[in-house]
Each structure stands twice: as structure tokens, then as C-alpha cells.
């Protein structure tokens, strides 16, 4: 074969273009034309492309830098969103909590008492919980619609593939450049939310078992974001159109979230407590089921307060009904982490599968 085999041998390209204006004139020719826009010229001077190797040979393509260039706005929006959520939390906890606490103190022993400040405090924390937990829906829309879908639909992805970047490298770069800020932002959001949520629990009506609080208090938040990114990529590679990919990716991750929400208590073995007499599990536990033990079988249809009255009446009632005791199945608060990590693992597995499928399909489609 006569031609140079690869562009990263400096002689390959330089030799071919001997006698043409090279790096030095590149700066002048480009600079002369670009000087007309002062802003652009300033940016040009500061940019790294004007380094000796920028205009000449050498170095591998930098798809990551290109992706950042293309999606700077999205990055700024994500950063702004994270900062705004943190700001709301800090303000709520440090500024507005005092009024709510004073209100609570004033209300002690009062039959009728306004708790507007407390409600507002809980609303704001709850709003951030919802935003942090369900942020992955926005990530899915962005990934399926804008990041991958639009580039595949309008052909700018093809433009990148016919530069010196293969489709697989393009996909990897887009995923990596999006995943990093998502991970960082999620970490900031989760840590801030954990702090804010536990600061004044007495002012909050939410429990650790609430769907959004459950997700927002740990790495599942980041896992859902990564999964949304991967599912968006897969939907876009399959459909190659922005709007359908947006719809499919949002619907898919929402469905995944709803399914996991439904199965959440089953992701880790629960605790079952039985007793001869009726009992209540601790308020902080996540009770899944309770009822009476009838003839040695647990029956949820029969409530724990089936037999009322004096001790003798209760005994007779239990004997007649063949009730030997009462039970409750529940997750104590200590089960938060096993439950949460199990869900995180499932979501990450789905993310990995979607990523693998997107790469395989892209490989299959392109040369």
C-alpha cells in the first residue's frame, strides 16, 4: 500500500501538504478574518487551538472537547439547576426554619393554632425532594431528544463520524461528558438534601419511605440519572429521530421507576414480628402488612383490633375466631440502605444494558 496508513504519523499529513501555508500562516490568515469580531478574536487567542499542535499535525482527536463545545448550554443549565436546588435548601433550613420552630413552640397546648410557616417549610423541602428524585425525567428528555436524538436526526452526528472520530468514540465521549456532571451534580444534590431533610425532622410531614425522599437520600438519584442518559442514547440510536426518542426514553425510565416503586419493599427481606397481644410497630418503620394469626396462618384481612373489650371478652373472642396472635411485616429504618442500594444496583444494571445495546446497535449500523 502506497499511502500513509494513519494520520497520527506526523509525516503523513505534513508531507502531503508540503509547500502549502502551514501553522504560522494559519494563525495569520485565520486571525485576519477573525479580528473583525473582537469577542471571537479574544476567544481565539485564549483558546488552546492556537498552540503549535493546534493548527498542525499531532495528537488524537478530542471528541470530549467537541461535545463540551456543542452542549455548553445544557451544562450551564444543569449547573444552574443544582445551584438553585441547593440554594432553596440552604435558605429553607437556615432562614425559614426559625419561624416554623417558633410557631411550633407557640402551638404547644393550643387547641387551634396556625402552622403556615411549618407547612411552607415542609412544602419547600418536599418540592426539592421531588425535583431531585424526578430530575432523571429531564435527563431522559435531554439525552433522547437533544444530546443523541437531535444529532442523529439532523446529521451532525454523521458530521462527527466523518471527521477522525468513530461512531463508538463519539457515543463514548457524549456519554462520558454527560455522565460526569450528572454524577457530580447528583452528589451535591443528594448530600444537600440529606442535610436539609434531617435538619428539622419535627417540621416535616414526610417519612423516609416516601418515594421521592427515598430516592433523593442516596446514590439511586445518580443511578436514575445515568440510566436515563443510557436509555436516551439507546432510544436515539434505535429511532434516529429526536422527538420519538425523547418520548420513548422518558416513558421508559418513568416505567422503570414506577415498577421499582411498586416492588421497592420486596427488594430486601422484611422483618416479621408476632405477639399474643395486638401491638403497633414503631412510627419510623415501614409497615408492609399486619393482621391476625388465625389457626397458625397469617391473615391480613383480619385487623389487629378484631377483639375488643375486657380481657375475658378478648380471650373468648380470640378462642372463637381461632386467633392465636397478631403479626406485622415491616422494614425498620435500618433497612433504608439495603433497600436503597438494591434499587440502585438494579437501575445501574439497566443503565449498563442500555449502554451496551446502544454500542452494539451503532456498531452494527455503521462501518
Amino acid at each position, binding site marked *: *500500500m*502506497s*499511502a*500513509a*496508513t*494513519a*494520520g*497520527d504519523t506526523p509525516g*503523513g*499529513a505534513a508531507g*502531503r*501538504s508540503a*509547500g*502549502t501555508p*502551514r*501553522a504560522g*500562516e*494559519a*494563525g495569520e*490568515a*485565520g486571525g485576519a*478574518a*477573525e479580528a*473583525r*469580531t473582537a*469577542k*471571537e478574536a479574544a476567544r*481565539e487567542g485564549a*483558546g488552546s*487551538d492556537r498552540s503549535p*499542535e*493546534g*493548527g*498542525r*499535525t*499531532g*495528537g*488524537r*482527536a*478530542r471528541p470530549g*472537547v*467537541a461535545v463540551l*463545545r*456543542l452542549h455548553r448550554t445544557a451544562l450551564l443549565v444543569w449547573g444552574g439547576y443544582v445551584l438553585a436546588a441547593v440554594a432553596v435548601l440552604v435558605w429553607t433550613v437556615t432562614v425559614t426554619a426559625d419561624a416554623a420552630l417558633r410557631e411550633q413552640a407557640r402551638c404547644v397546648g393550643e387547641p387551634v393554632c396556625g402552622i403556615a410557616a411549618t407547612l411552607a417549610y415542609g412544602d419547600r423541602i418536599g418540592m426539592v425532594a421531588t425535583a431531585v428524585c424526578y430530575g432523571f425525567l429531564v435527563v431522559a428528555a435531554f439525552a433522547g431528544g437533544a444530546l443523541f436524538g437531535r444529532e442523529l436526526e*439532523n*446529521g*451532525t452526528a*454523521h*458530521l*462527527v*463520524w*466523518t*471527521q*477522525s*472520530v*468513530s461512531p463508538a468514540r463519539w457515543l463514548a465521549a457524549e456519554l462520558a461528558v454527560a455522565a460526569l456532571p450528572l454524577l457530580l451534580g447528583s452528589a451535591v444534590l443528594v448530600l444537600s438534601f440529606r442535610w436539609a431533610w434531617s435538619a428539622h425532622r419535627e417540621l416535616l410531614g414526610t417519612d423516609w419511605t416516601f418515594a421521592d425522599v427515598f430516592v433523593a437520600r442516596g446514590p439511586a438519584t445518580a443511578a436514575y440519572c445515568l440510566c436515563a442518559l443510557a436509555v436516551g442514547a439507546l432510544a436515539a440510536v434505535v429511532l434516529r429521530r429526536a422527538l420519538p426518542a425523547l418520548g420513548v426514553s422518558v416513558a421508559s425510565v418513568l416505567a422503570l421507576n414506577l415498577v421499582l416503586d411498586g416492588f421497592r419493599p420486596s427488594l430486601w427481606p422484611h422483618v416479621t414480628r408476632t405477639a399474643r397481644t395486638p401491638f403497633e410497630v414503631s412510627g419510623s418503620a415501614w409497615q408492609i402488612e399486619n393482621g391476625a394469626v388465625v389457626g397458625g396462618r397469617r391473615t391480613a384481612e383480619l385487623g389487629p383490633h378484631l377483639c375488643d373489650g375486657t380481657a375475658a371478652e378478648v380471650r373468648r373472642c380470640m378462642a372463637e375466631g381461632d386467633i392465636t396472635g397478631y403479626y406485622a411485616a415491616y422494614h425498620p429504618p435500618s433497612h433504608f440502605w439495603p433497600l436503597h442500594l438494591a434499587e440502585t444496583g438494579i437501575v445501574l444494571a439497566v443503565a449498563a444494558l442500555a449502554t451496551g445495546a446502544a454500542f452494539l446497535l451503532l456498531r*452494527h*449500523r*455503521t*462501518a
Partner: protein
Amino acid sequence: MSEETAALKAVGLGLRYRRRRGHVLRDCSFRLPAGRVCALVGPNGAGKSTLLSLAAGLIRPTEGTVHVLGTGPAEARERFAYVAQDKPLPPQLTVAGTLRLGADLNRARWDAAAAGRIAYAHHAPDGDRSGSLDPGARIRSLSGGQRTRVALALAFGKRPELMLLDEPMADLDPLARRELLGALMGEAAEHGTTIVLSSHIVTELDGACDHLLLMGGGRVRLAGDPEELVAAHTLLTGPARDLTGHTVVESRGTDRQLTALVRPGGPPGDDWRTAAPSLEEVLLAHLRNPGAPDLVTEGTVNP
């Protein structure tokens, strides 16, 4: 391998999108020697864009293979440039930003001067620079012709060994077309760059190209040096007579008078008046008659 490496070679290349929808491209075999300027002509829907997409590695053929610069499209990625028909560019970038994107994506061989010449250096005879681009202008604010200019600047900046240009002239005014053709000729002459440019307007490329691929109905109908292709055909006019011995591309006429475009199988009889057809006549005759046999002149197909 032949004495010179083919810049582009197809062997039995075919593509169909869905089983029920037939072929977009069918059994294409040709060989484009390096250093040629090749016109890829044919009517709309002939498969020109598909062929270029396959060569650029954007899609995978369902049959056959395509070789680019002696290897597969994926391996040759750094060494060829491709400009798609709709000139896709990220709308949110500026012209200068788009060229920086090209630099980032082609660090190994980016030539900012070559890209800048195409994008910014517009030479009208009276020194008017109205056609040249503002580096700070957003892509979304540009006209079709200006976008074409930026897309071509990316292609030139890559300093490719092969340029695959899909309808590069479509959005350009006559002056800009002339300018682009000049730039392409200069590139080919100076660096030995192979250039493939598609067009559905045959005459547009006449004289500028030393190689021609005519596509019709997903097939390569004619391939080779345009002069050789024209020389292989003769226009016969005469009393309606037997044309056996000649390969007839097209014939029409009345009972007494017949005009036929043939590939002569021997010296025509004395009854015939012979004339040399124009390139356009040869191409149109083949497009009007899908049944006419294909012709690939010597040296463009591998043994």
C-alpha cells in the same frame, strides 16, 4: 493489487433498507483510481447519496464491500472527508467555533489555513468580500450557500486524500460554483487529492472531471474516463436498417429514417451517416433506456 491504489473501489456493493422494499443500490462494482476528479452523476433517487454514505462508512452495506484508500471506510476515516447533501452543521455554533470543532476532531491533520481559505477568503473580481463569512456568525443564521461553504471548509481543513462531496454545488450561486470548482481542481493538482462529487446536473461538471460514474436505478451504468466513454459511442443516422453487430443504447425514428446511439461492433455500413455524440447525449440516452447494457471502460474494474 494493481499498480496504483484505488481511491475508491466497490465490489458487488448493494444495500436494501427493508426486505420488502427492494434495493437502493444493487451490485455496484467499479474502481476509481487515485488522483482523479470524479463526477458521480445520475437522476434523483439513483443511489448517489447512498453510495457516498456507504463509502463514508455511515451505513453498512447489506451486500458486497467498499474499499476506501485501500482499506475499509472505518480504517480510512482520518484520511477522507465527506460532505453530506444537506450539509449538517451544529446550528448553535459560530463559523469560527465550527472550524475549531474541526480542529478538535481532526487533531492529527487539521490545516487551519486551508479551512480558513475556503470559509473566509472570497475573491470577487472587484475585491468585494461580501460573500465571505463572518467568523462570529451563528450557523443557524447562515444561508444554504454559506453553510455549504463552512461544510466544505471542514472538508478542506482535514487535508484529506479523498473527498466525498454529495451535491456540493446545489446551494451555490454560479460564481461560488466556479470558485469551488477552482479550489477543488487546485487541491487535486497540488496534493493529488481524489475528489468525488455528485450532481444530478450533468453539464455542470463537464470538462472539470477526468472520471465519471453514471448511476441509474441503484446501478452503476457507466464508469470511466468521460472522453473514452464518449469515444465508445457513435451516433448513427440513416434509412431504417438492421443494427445487428452494434450494441444499441437507444434508437428512435420513422420507417425511413433512424437515429441510433450505438457502441459500434465494427465499421458501420456506407448507408449510415456517423457523428460523435456529446457526453450529455451519451448519459441521457443511458438514463432514458434502463435496459441498455452498462459500460465500464477498461482499467476501472478489477480483473
